[in-house]
């Protein structure tokens, strides 16, 4: 049994709700996507299977709608509006990304939501339902730029633009908060029987996804500025990203500060035969002989502390530059120093650790006589395992069965 077995979710599917639906699918909810008669515009999003465009071939659709069922409903007709309202009668959670734009047709929260006291109505919109900007156009790029993340990302050379990370992260962040909101409302409903409106604001979500760059401003009115491959800083900080022997990069993470760390780092240099190449390695021995951890705050006050930490960084960089990035990553971790190789999404997907966790799940595409590997869930629920989903639905594929089920439920209720 999955964690959300029996939970009925209806999704007015668009770029703001699709990733939220995916999160509920893997937890076992029955998610029904509502598409317009010709199908969702997300079906036109590249990339396509074999790079051949087609409404059943969008990998963006496949990735987001996997495990859902599809029903086409023309929400511009009275009949379609009635079908949608009936669908909501059997729904636990509605996911929609339009907010008040649903109101004129009588499809909004005020009309359909309030009348269903147990319904959890989740609205995921760019600026919040009641924003003065609710009608403004927005994309992932503009939301991440206005909400903070892009300010922090880029290169130390500020003649280059700030950089956006890929993957529709603004919509991912909105989806995560959407599901936190949905499940929090579900906990309340489990306890009281009452549903409610959950208003998720993607711009606000981006604004509280800026880590130190937000709270340094809130607390100290300090502005962090972007730097290559490391945290934005109030003043330039030392690099942590290294070009390795194979032309790939690795990140060395946080510098060691405990005496034992310096001892191990010295031993690692010795093991690799690199001691001769780092005359300052002697400072690692001095660090190792200390009785208390080195305090980075003392760098400006105590030359020996500065020399110990500089030697540690130089040692890390020397080792990393002499090994392929992935070998450095493993060797560094095995020597007790957290580090990581900078890998691409597909390289991560094939990583032995990810495979061992069962992260790759096989999804059958009987219509194509193929099985493809998809990213699975990030967590292992020991008592309620996450589902292996079915492929994304074709346009309106489940219309008949969903409507038949609806009629059956109506008949049962009337009886």
């Amino acid at each position: 049994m999955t964690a959300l077995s029996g939970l009925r979710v209806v999704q007015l599917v668009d770029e703001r709700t699709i990733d939220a639906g995916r999160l509920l699918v893997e937890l076992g909810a029955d998610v029904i996507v509502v598409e317009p008669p010709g199908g969702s515009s997300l079906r036109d999003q590249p990339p396509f299977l074999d790079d051949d465009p087609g409404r059943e071939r969008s990998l963006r659709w496949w990735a987001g709608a996997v495990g859902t069922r599809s029903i086409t409903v023309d929400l511009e007709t009275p009949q379609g509006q009635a079908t949608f309202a009936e669908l909501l009668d059997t729904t636990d959670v509605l996911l929609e990304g339009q907010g008040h734009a649903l109101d004129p047709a009588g499809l909004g929260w005020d009309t359909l939501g309030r009348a269903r006291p147990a319904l959890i109505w989740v609205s995921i919109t760019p600026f919040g339902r009641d924003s003065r900007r609710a009608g403004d156009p927005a994309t992932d790029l503009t939301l991440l730029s206005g909400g903070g993340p892009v300010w922090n990302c880029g290169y130390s050379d500020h003649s280059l633009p700030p950089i956006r990370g890929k993957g529709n992260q603004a919509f991912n962040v909105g989806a995560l908060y959407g599901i936190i909101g949905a499940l929090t409302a579900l906990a309340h409903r489990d306890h009281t029987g009452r549903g409610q409106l959950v208003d998720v604001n993607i711009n606000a979500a981006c604004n509280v996804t800026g880590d130190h760059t937000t709270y340094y401003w809130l607390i100290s009115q300090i502005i962090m500025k972007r730097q290559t491959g490391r945290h934005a800083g109030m003043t330039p900080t030392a690099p942590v990203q290294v070009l390795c022997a194979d032309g790939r990069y690795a990140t060395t993470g946080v510098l060691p500060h405990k005496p034992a760390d310096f001892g191990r780092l010295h031993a690692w240099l010795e093991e690799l035969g690199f001691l001769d190449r780092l005359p300052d390695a002697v400072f690692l021995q001095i660090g190792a002989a200390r009785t208390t951890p080195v305090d980075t705050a003392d760098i400006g006050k105590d030359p020996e502390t500065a020399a110990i930490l500089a030697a540690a960084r130089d040692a890390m960089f020397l080792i990393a530059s002499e090994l392929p990035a992935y070998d450095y990553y493993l060797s560094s971790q095995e020597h007790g120093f957290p580090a990581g190789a900078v890998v691409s999404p597909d390289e991560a997907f094939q990583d032995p650790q990810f495979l061992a966790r069962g992260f790759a799940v096989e999804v059958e595409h009987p219509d194509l006589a193929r099985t493809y590997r998809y990213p699975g869930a990030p967590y292992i629920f020991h008592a309620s395992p996450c589902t292996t989903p079915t492929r994304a639905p074709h346009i309106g594929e489940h219309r008949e069965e969903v409507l038949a089920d609806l009629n059956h439920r109506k008949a049962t209720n009337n009886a």
Partner: protein
Amino acid sequence: MGALDHIRVCDFGGQLAGAGATKLLAMFGAEVIRVEDPTNEGRWDTMRVVGPFVDERRGVDLNGGFNNHNIHKLGVTLNLRTAEGRELLERLISVSDVVTENFAAGVLERLGFGYESLKRIRPDIIYVSNCGYGHTGPYRSFKTWGPIVQAVSGLTFTSGLPDSEPAGWGFSYMDHGAAAFMAIAVLAALHHREVTGEGQWVDLASTTAGLTLQRTAVLDWTVNGRRSRRPGAPNGNRADFAEMAPHGIYPAAGDDRWVAVACRDDDDWVALRELMNDPALDDRFATLADRLEHQDALDETIGRWMSTREPHEAAHDLVTAGVPASVVKSPPERIDNDPDLDAWGLFPTVEHPLMGKVRVEGVPIHFSETDWTADKPGPLLGEHNERIFVDLLGVEPAELDRQHKDGVI
């Protein structure tokens, strides 16, 4: 009332990746009790000792980041190296619904509180662990920080210019991501327990969480065999899969000022072209395919226009014309100068007993019936020992005094 008023969490979650999850639960009404180590004054959570600070004072109770991540929680101290400390923790767990932690894999078990032990104490306990690689697999002993999670999950790679060093994320994006998935894990497990009566262990790995945020790129590999690492890629500011053009971040007038612009379709393109009124934007750019083919020239033309424009005015003009655009906003611009976020109440102020009034991050969700609250600061070290150990668990006050002197709490 809060949605989670009926839930108690025994919380070992620190930093942002753990504390950020239980902060949400606390703001939604759960009683979250953070358990810290008195022998090192809670320093396993480095947030207690690094900045920012409101003034020149320093100490484990004076960190603004710790306060931000821990508002509305209660704080107790327990020395788990002592038998009495472990016994108190058992009593606390026995009256808790959830145990959360983001130690390195295996630490809580070595302290004597792995899932099997927790289950003996309370059979329907929900235990959510959150670490970089999870508790299984060949790398389970490896340790991570946010930037390492981002590196090994593909996120760092996709943020950069083509054939250049990765730019990365500039902050611990995946501390937020891990915290969000951790909160979801707790809430989903609570529903499962509500329905079945059954507790469980949920083992979250933040590295895999990072890769779930790039599902389409993974399918482009598993289905089409296309690697993300290829000449000319990645280009973070261009559309992920050539679905839009123009799609970029352009230099505006002023020092290090930038404006993001994205044309979703031909209508957006026509609106942009009319606004720019530049004869260089001729029929070479009529269709998306044309614009993709001439994207370098297109970006150069837009960049030239933008560089003469005040950034906020340019973004305003674009949005008014129906074209998605935004200034790349600085912290003061987005935090202090956004009337929308003011109206939302996104950055509330709490009264901290030592720091005074300090602003914190609120929640980007509003609930019509059970909205969140943000009127209590993060706990001082051991601030709620008496409330939890005496009032909740029934320890005699004199006994608690002795335990304090003996280093148990």
